[in-house]
């Protein structure tokens, strides 16, 4: 009997200890950033998501981030460091962290990993991305409506499917207004390099583009557009403050809801590896306020947004022709997800070669 009591007491003690240990152990959520949170673009929006976690969960979680982590051999070390410091959930927010994330995840099976824009998953690695191309389609339409020269300039980072998809969606949107709309592309081979982004914008403007859009992370391009008196779109974040006269609208990435949901899942113990590809309907891609444009252009853009959200309009609905003239999707067809995810060809009308 005495033995039984001692056993019961010790069990009670152990469970009490483990409960207090859990209560004392905050969930640590780590973030790896490709640029600085001050880029006011891609990384800025991820950092907004991180801050949303702080606001929502308060003392339950602690967030920590590392900025400017190059997409090379160093990334693996930085991710490992976060895992070793007790992070239970780690978001790696650039494509190039894919293989390093998987390598670290294999060594830390109890830590949950979330990799943005990649395609490799395991039991403790999820992937997530947004259908940014929906926003691109909308701004493409606006561009064709407002452009006088009929030429837009597009600053690309790396010719990976995500970026190519954005270029195609932009031009497809523009072609619904002006079938002869021209699109020039300059690649800067970097996600964040304000100097080169600005130079690229100047080159495109000198080649006749009077609308600039970009798939890079800084505000350099919209600032050049403001100086030179042409129009521009904000990318990833609302950039109106940097180009109050030039900006037409911005594509805004909203990571906050996703980050909160995934943190909640880890806290609940319900986290499982998933693949998320959310668009405007899921509130992961937003369009900023429509400014510096006539009312009819604004009304039409709003209608397009509503049609995409309701599912009536798909930016990659046929007929779509590839650059070489071959048919990519016949009328009535839509390009399937697999093709979108591996997109390595331009639609007809892009003034560039892949």
């Amino acid at each position, binding site marked *: 009997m005495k033995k039984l009591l001692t056993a019961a007491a010790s069990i009670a003690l152990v469970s009490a200890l483990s409960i207090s240990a859990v209560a004392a152990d905050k969930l640590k959520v780590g973030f790896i950033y490709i640029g*600085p949170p001050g880029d006011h673009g891609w990384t800025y929006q991820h950092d907004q998501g991180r801050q949303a976690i702080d606001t929502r969960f308060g003392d339950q979680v602690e967030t*920590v981030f*590392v*900025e*400017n982590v*190059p*997409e*090379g*051999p*160093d990334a*693996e*070390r*930085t991710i*490992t*460091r*976060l895992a*070793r*410091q007790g992070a239970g959930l780690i978001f790696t927010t650039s*494509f*190039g962290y*894919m*293989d390093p994330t998987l*390598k670290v995840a294999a*060594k830390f099976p109890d830590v949950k990993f979330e990799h943005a824009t990649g*395609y490799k998953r395991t039991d403790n690695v999820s992937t997530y991305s947004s259908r940014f191309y929906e926003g691109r389609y909308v701004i493409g339409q606006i561009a064709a409506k407002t452009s006088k020269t009929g030429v837009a300039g597009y600053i690309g980072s*790396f*010719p*990976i*499917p995500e970026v190519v998809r954005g270029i195609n969606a932009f031009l497809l949107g523009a072609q619904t207004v002006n079938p002869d709309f021209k699109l020039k592309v300059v690649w800067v*081979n970097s996600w964040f390099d304000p100097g080169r982004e600005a130079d690229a914008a100047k080159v495109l403007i000198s080649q006749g583009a009077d609308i600039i859009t970009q798939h890079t992370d800084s505000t350099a391009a919209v600032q050049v557009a403001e100086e030179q008196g042409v129009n521009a779109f904000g990318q990833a974040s609302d950039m109106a403050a940097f180009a109050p006269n030039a900006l037409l609208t911005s594509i805004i990435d909203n990571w906050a809801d996703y980050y909160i949901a995934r943190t909640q899942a880890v806290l609940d113990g319900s986290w499982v590896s998933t693949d998320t590809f959310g668009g405007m309907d899921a509130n992961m891609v937003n369009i900023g306020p429509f400014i510096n444009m006539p009312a009819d252009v604004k009304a039409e853009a709003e209608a397009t947004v509503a049609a995409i959200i309701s599912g009536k309009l798909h930016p990659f609905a046929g007929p779509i022709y590839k650059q070489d003239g071959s048919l990519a999707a016949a009328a009535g067809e839509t390009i399937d997800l697999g093709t979108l*995810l*591996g*997109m*390595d060809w331009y639609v007809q009308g892009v003034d560039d070669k892949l």
Partner: protein
Amino acid sequence: MQLILEKRAQASGLMNLLSPVLAILLTVIMGGLIFAAMGKPPLTALYLYFIDPLTSWWSIEEVLVKAGPLILIGVGLAVCFKANVWNIGAEGQFTAGALMGAIIPVLWGEWQSPFALVAMLFLGALGGALFAFIPAWLKTRFGVNEILTSLMLVYIAQLLLDWMVRGPWNDPHGYNFPKSASFEGWHLLPMWGDGRMHLGLVVSLVAALVLFWVMRHTLKGFEVNVVGSAPRAGAFAGFSQTKMVWFCFALSGGLAGLAGLIEVAGPVGQLQPNISPNYGFTAIIVAFLGRLNPIGVIFAGLLLAISYIGGEGVQIELGISDKTTQVFQGMLLFFILMCDTLILYRLKWISTQSSQQAIGDPS
């Protein structure tokens, strides 16, 4: 009273050794002041920066992994600079070596044998050396400044790698993302420990020790020293300046290429557009910090590696920008160059009064 620099009759051997120590000390003091100015506890920050990386086996391993390529490239550059040959393009030779060595895993993926790895190492060194022969040839044939040509070739190598992983060597199952297929089996270096320790480290140390011996005990080492410090004397001794340029580029390019192959067959495990966080350029600092002496380069490589790992730790623990690491490395190089002045010069106080008197009194 006035402080002047007076040329020493002879280079000071003591200052030659003390200069790096003094530079490190000044860097630490200035670093502490910078941390304090940013409102961070300076002692904690300095501890995290320089000591903390050495307190766990994992971070020691990471320091060694980081130091490996810096040492391997650094020792080659040390010999090169000693001979007054200025190869600034180690970063490009690093990339060229990685590309050449990757021929085997990318094109002959089925050939799995230890010899495949040996062949990769050989091809890596060969690729770096061949790429370095371009500035060597331009220099010896046309007298083109090798600083410019070797530097410009860095960008060519990087763009070539970029093109290869997007085009011909793109992973066929990789959704067109810019990567080659992952290397497997004998196309990867043996690794051990729970981190990422690999064979490359041993290669770096062996290379440093061999070069130390060569520089100290062989005719070639003597030749490098003579041609570097007194080219005319070298010419009278029958040493050829042209051959020296070829030798230096072959050696430093080969070692940089080997380092590149080791990096892709080790920590990275595939070809991708970014394979180097500027190892080839940082190795220039390493070579000078190590007094252009292969043993010194080992310590300099370790110090720079600590500054990277520590800088990362400070960034996470105290929330300081990653630019701090660059500021520290910049300060280190700056103070080294500053303190090096003291090898050939000494500081001396002179009385302004007596100099005025000297001017006023013509006798």
